[in-house]
């Protein structure tokens, strides 16, 4: 990756670009009376792959456009590498965008498209540098073509090359893979990740695809209705969601409402539909009163009533409503009295499968459960997750 190592006339000389953190402070954006982004605080460390994940309409694009300078915030401030950029216009910011529809210039060759930003900043050898960037995305042989003569996937790479060739402090990608088919999308996910690691730029990647966010990003911010619900490493978000929205939007969760009835010191016990369900205190946002307890479907163990422990916590008895065998695993829906339907993913170990109508017992490790505020809607984010998946 020679193109970044030799950077004598690096674009953003004053902001030591590779070490430039982005900081948003209390950013709010209103469109008329509509609150698109609500008092957003965000810090994106340099050289990280940061994903902004959320359902359509939650304000991801608006946030990205404010960072790019294509939209000005109604209030709040932002800085890159400690330097305030609030109110500056797009062409003054050390930031480049890969647009959702690519926005390639149709009247220019692929090479001229890529060289555009370099020429504007009067960088020497812009043609050679553009050529190098095109080679990085494996399109060196198509540099004389017009964008209209390229496939969607190729246009996407040109858009990427056109942005990274400028070695911006921050590269913004707005659903860059949204228009590609599934196979190409998976391939480009790997490629984007490789390029990011190779050149070490900060990537801010907007997507509504949770799988994409989790496989690519170091840090994921889950956004909902103009606010960040939770931010962290993908594993952290998945294993310990802090809101019902995150629990349902990022993977699936069984959320059960109940009342905390016992404090065991390091854990609390929640009573729900006559069952005693334990959750560790450090994994619960609430320690008394009403609470939701959440368990991921794959964390549930399903057994026959004869094999189940006699009594205690973390035991749910129910009847299989529905089962679907997918090969690697079987997905069950189990009706539990007093709680309702509970989803279970059971990995295929060659065990005997349960059929609808069978009585089963569900159990799990206390360490896998998480507790949420009792006021939350158990279905929050579930519909959005479904919409995002289609």
């Amino acid at each position, binding site marked *: 990756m020679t193109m970044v190592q030799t950077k004598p006339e690096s*674009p953003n000389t004053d902001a030591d670009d590779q070490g430039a953190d982005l900081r948003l402070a209390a950013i709010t954006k209103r469109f008329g009376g509509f609150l698109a982004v609500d008092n957003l605080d965000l810090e994106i460390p340099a050289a990280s792959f940061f994903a902004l994940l959320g359902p359509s309409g939650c304000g991801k694009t608006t946030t990205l456009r404010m960072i*790019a*300078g*294509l939209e000005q915030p109604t209030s709040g401030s932002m800085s890159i590498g400690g330097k305030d950029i609030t109110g500056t*216009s*797009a*062409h003054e910011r050390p*930031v*480049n*965008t890969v*647009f959702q*529809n690519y*926005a*390639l*210039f*149709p*009247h220019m060759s692929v090479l001229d498209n890529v060289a*555009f*930003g370099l020429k*504007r*900043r009067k960088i020497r050898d812009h043609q050679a540098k553009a050529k190098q960037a095109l080679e990085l995305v494996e399109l060196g042989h198509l540099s004389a073509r017009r964008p209209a003569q390229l496939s969607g996937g190729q246009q996407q790479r040109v858009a990427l090359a*056109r942005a990274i060739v*400028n070695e911006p402090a921050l590269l913004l990608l707005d659903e860059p893979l949204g228009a590609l088919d599934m196979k190409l999308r998976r391939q480009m996910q790997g490629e984007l990740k490789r390029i990011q690691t190779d050149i070490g730029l900060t990537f801010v990647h907007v997507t509504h695809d949770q799988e994409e966010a989790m496989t690519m990003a170091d840090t994921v911010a889950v956004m909902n209705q103009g606010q960040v619900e939770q931010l962290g490493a993908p594993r952290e978000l998945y294993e310990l969601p802090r809101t019902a929205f995150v629990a349902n939007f990022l993977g699936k969760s069984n959320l059960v409402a109940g009342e905390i009835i016992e404090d065991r010191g390091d854990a609390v016990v929640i009573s729900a539909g006559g069952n005693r369900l334990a959750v560790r205190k450090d994994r619960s946002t609430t320690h008394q009163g009403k609470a939701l307890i959440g368990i991921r479907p794959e964390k549930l163990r399903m057994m026959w009533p004869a094999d189940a422990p006699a009594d205690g916590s973390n035991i749910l008895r129910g009847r299989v409503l529905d089962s679907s065998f997918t090969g690697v695993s079987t997905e069950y829906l189990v009706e539990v009295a007093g709680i309702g339907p509970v989803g279970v993913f059971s990995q295929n170990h060659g065990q005997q499968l349960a059929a609808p109508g069978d009585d089963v017992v569900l159990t799990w490790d206390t360490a896998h459960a998480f507790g949420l505020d009792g006021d939350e809607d158990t279905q929050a984010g579930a519909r959005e997750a479904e919409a995002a998946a289609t």
Partner: protein
Amino acid sequence: MSLLTAPRSAKAKPEETRSASEIRADKRRGRVGYLLILPGFIFMLLFFVLPVFSLLATSLYTKPPGADIGQFVPALQFSNYAAVLGSYWPELVRSFAFALIATVAALAIGYPMAYLVAVRLRGRKLLQGILLVLIIAPFFTSFILRTQAWKQILADEGPVVAVLRAMALLPEDGRLTATAFAVVCGLTYNFLPFMTLPIYANLERLDTRLIEAGGDLYANSFTTFRTVTLPLSMPGVIAGTLLTFIPASGDYINAALLGNNQNTTMIGQVIDSRFFRVVDYPGASALSFVLMLAILFLVILYVRRFGTKELL
């Protein structure tokens, strides 16, 4: 690989496997196409091709000795061309100069108007509609009436002259009517919609995300305009400038109503007077023909220099 390509090659039928009925259907479609262009073809033949030949023939007629006014006989008198060019080349050059200035002025006025309506006001349908109607509104009154109105506006007793004199931008005895300035103003005004509308139609389709991409790639708004917006709107600009320049160079109303009879005469006026007053049909025809060829020549030069593939 063969699995992937198999259905595709089945879809694209090679010529030899096409059935006879498909080929017949193709031929029928071809015939319908020709039938549809027939009216236009006949129209062009009757009202363009034949008149041009008639014009060419007339331009070579000669006046037999002792003939009455307006009496000519067919001939091949090429000296008609030398005669009219020798007498009227200044008017020809002036026509093109006036038309050129008017075209540039109309572009300078029309492009920003088109840009405002098509790009800046995008999405505000009502305002766009009102402004478009205002651009087209002058067409609702007659060309001559509008030009006559300009004569009033620019008249010596009119408000414009009064203000300019008061501001000392015009000498005390200075005037606007009966000057080259007035003629060019009239031309600019009268052909402005022809400039504005094609540019509007083009800019209306401009993807504004490209303008944002320009800004994102370190181009300020002027550079973005120069490198993105303007090149993309060139087809509209070319169409607009042609639709302005061509009629403006042959126009005689503006020069007749707003000019004087000495240094603002345009070639259209000369042709008009050769035809209807002097009754010199060959001379008028020769001038018309020269004007036509000159415009054609200039247009080809222009389009080859700036044009897009769409036009040539």
